[in-house]
């Protein structure tokens, strides 16, 4: 960029309007409304246009952020969209769910003294702008020899599928559930990521010729070996980390105890909040304790409140500083009246005479020395047990990969956490022409990391298929 950059304007970060908390806890509509064109320009004007371009390095798919911001500042929104789309195939989603504060925004020079440029909000604006104008269409690829099977339609699978289809390969995506999108559909709630956006992204893939086969559980309906035999030259496994974790404490099979996966799947994928127009019920309860403090926990507790719970309580064994959720989600949860019980760990779930949850017995914790993860280890304080009255308990303690695939694919190795072993740069597994990426390889992580893995695998698959 040789042209002279306009001078940055010093002003505080432009806020993003959002639904009032008192109102939004009664609906599932999206919480933030997004920037208007004017807001986006005003925020873009804050960018220093520095030479360091550290923000790009902070982005797992290296979006040319300074260029995007510059174009937005000049009102060239569609051009800005194209810049983002060069490296990020799901910008409307990433703008909403990426942990920007740990990736691009943390690197922003402005952030050293004040607030960084709101890169995520600008990205979201650009993507929404293009989608609303139907400008999101992609160029029609020139067909090329080669068939690739993608297993799983989460961000990893969708990205790999999109990139390979762009190169002209025949791509088929196999998805176990009845709807594509992975966690974007079944996990992340409507009020944070409207499902229309996921549908739009999936439809773009369809328009590019990607074939979507739903209701196919690979390992059961078809195996990886059968896919290879059926003429797919390469397989990409983007099967995620879908297995829930329970605490193995007494009372976990009482009525009213859910895994976050079940609670969120019922609510989001099955639309239990529209029961009985939609057939799937949910028992949100009156007082809901959600155990954990990641994005999954925040989503669960905020769903519970919208489903009518009087009290939504986060129970977390470490302190506020260690909570892994995006800052914005924690902030939204606080605004919505969620109660945080930190340094608290459940030891037992108590039931009534009919077998329904009536209370959660917890113990207080204190922080000791840092553990392997670098976070200070929580240690129970002897004799500090107490009970809190609740009628629903949701376990949001992390997830691990489903063993179905590796159990049914000879030669496919997993590590001791059950994650598929795959090369970091290519995604190649221990089976030739079988690639993997996303949560299936890393364990539960982020949308953008899954996309990055899908991208790298697409490049690697292309390199192999070209040489066939």
């Amino acid at each position, binding site marked *: 960029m040789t042209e002279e950059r306009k001078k940055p304007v010093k002003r505080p970060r432009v806020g993003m309007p959002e639904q009032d908390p008192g109102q939004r806890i009664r609906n599932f509509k999206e919480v933030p409304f997004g920037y208007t064109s004017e807001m986006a320009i005003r925020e873009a004007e804050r960018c220093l246009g520095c030479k360091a371009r550290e923000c790009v390095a902070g982005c797992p798919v290296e979006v040319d952020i300074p260029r995007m911001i510059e174009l937005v500042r000049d009102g060239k929104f569609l051009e800005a969209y194209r810049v983002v789309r060069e490296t990020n195939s799901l910008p409307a989603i990433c703008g909403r769910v990426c942990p920007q504060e740990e990736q691009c925004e943390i690197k922003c020079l402005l952030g050293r003294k004040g607030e960084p440029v709101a890169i995520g909000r600008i990205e979201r604006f650009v993507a929404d702008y293009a989608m609303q104008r139907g400008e999101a269409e992609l160029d029609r690829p020139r067909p090329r020899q080669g068939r690739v099977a993608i297993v799983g339609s989460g961000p990893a699978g969708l990205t790999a599928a999109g990139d390979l289809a762009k190169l002209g390969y025949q791509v088929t995506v196999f998805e*176990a559930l009845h709807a594509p999108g992975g966690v974007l559909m079944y996990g992340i709630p409507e009020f944070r990521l409207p499902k229309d956006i996921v549908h739009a992204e999936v439809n773009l893939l369809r328009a590019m010729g990607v074939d979507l086969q739903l209701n196919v559980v690979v390992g059961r309906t078809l195996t990886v070996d059968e896919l290879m035999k059926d003429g797919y030259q390469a397989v990409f496994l983007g099967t995620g980390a*879908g*297995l829930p974790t329970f605490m193995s404490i007494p009372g*976990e099979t009482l009525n009213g105890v*859910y895994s976050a996966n079940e609670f969120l799947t019922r609510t989001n994928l099955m639309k239990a909040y529209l029961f009985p127009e939609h057939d799937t019920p949910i*028992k949100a309860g009156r007082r809901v304790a959600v155990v954990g403090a990641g994005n999954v926990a925040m989503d669960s507790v905020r769903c519970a409140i919208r489903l009518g719970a009087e009290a939504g309580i986060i129970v977390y064994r470490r302190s506020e500083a260690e909570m892994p959720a995006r800052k914005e989600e924690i902030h939204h949860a606080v605004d919505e009246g969620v109660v945080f019980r930190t340094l608290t760990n459940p030891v037992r779930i108590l039931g009534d005479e009919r077998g329904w949850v009536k209370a959660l017995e917890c113990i207080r914790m204190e922080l000791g020395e840092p553990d392997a993860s670098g976070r200070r280890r929580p240690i129970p304080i002897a004799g500090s047990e107490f009970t809190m009255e609740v009628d629903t308990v949701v376990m949001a303690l992390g997830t691990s990969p489903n063993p179905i695939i590796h159990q049914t694919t000879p030669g496919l190795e997993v590590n001791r956490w059950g994650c598929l072993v795959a090369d970091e740069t290519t995604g190649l597994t221990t089976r030739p022409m079988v690639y993997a990426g996303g949560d299936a390889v890393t364990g539960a992580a982020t949308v953008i990391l899954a996309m990055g893995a899908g991208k790298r695998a697409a490049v690697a698959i292309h390199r192999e298929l070209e040489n066939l």
Partner: protein
Amino acid sequence: MFKIAERRDLTPVTKLFRVQAPLVARKAQPGQFVIVRVREQGERIPLTIAGYDREKGTITVVVQEVGKTSGLACRLEEGQGFPDLAGPLGRPAEPLLIKTGRAITVGGGFGVAPILPIAGLLRQWGVKVTSIIGARTADLLILEDELAAVSDEVLVATDDGSRGTHGFVTQVLQDLIDKGQRIDQVIAIGPMAMMRAVAGVTQAPGLATLVSVDPVMVDGTGMCGACRLTVAGEVKFACVDGPLFDAHQVDFDEQVRRGKMYAVEEKRALEACRCGGGHQ
């Protein structure tokens, strides 16, 4: 769309569907199930596979009307279909079955349907098969001829005495045990109360007994844990660890209780649509 190739009304509230599902038919094994939805807004429910034809690419399922979703399913006609159907899921029965001697199968209500392929498998191995079937009344007995074709004998019990033994299937089973006949394994599928009663009868003589549990499910692939149950003091997921389990290790009380988790909602759903529940 998974097209219904054939529909048969087994009783006024029990329908058999042969469904076009070639990939599932290619892999299906006795003991496994599929997850279906009956409409776009529908919930995901498990249906046990009652048969399959690998050449024709069809599987057979039997649905009994008990609530809204099963009621809607029972209204599906030939040519219509299930918008979604995934499977085959769960562990096949094969490794759990004793492949010699004599087996008793016990089918209560529409549980006779999933018994069919299991009895067929046992017969293939040369196991002598005695099948006991039961229902409230003679008109509600299903698939008797089909079962007879894969059994050495079929014994019938009805609650009202309109056919066979007047009483429950467990009485017939108890009689066989009391006669001191050789029994290597019992396989019981039906309502939870029936399976629990069978487990009670076979416990004292120490007869190996399998039951197929039928908990609430969502995904059917191990993802949600809705299907949790305690077996031998350990928490299992019925959809991936089952659905067949050692009857003497299953915590039936817990299963009955968990089965009632959505009783209020089920009633509400039924009232809201007034579509199902010709029964009870």
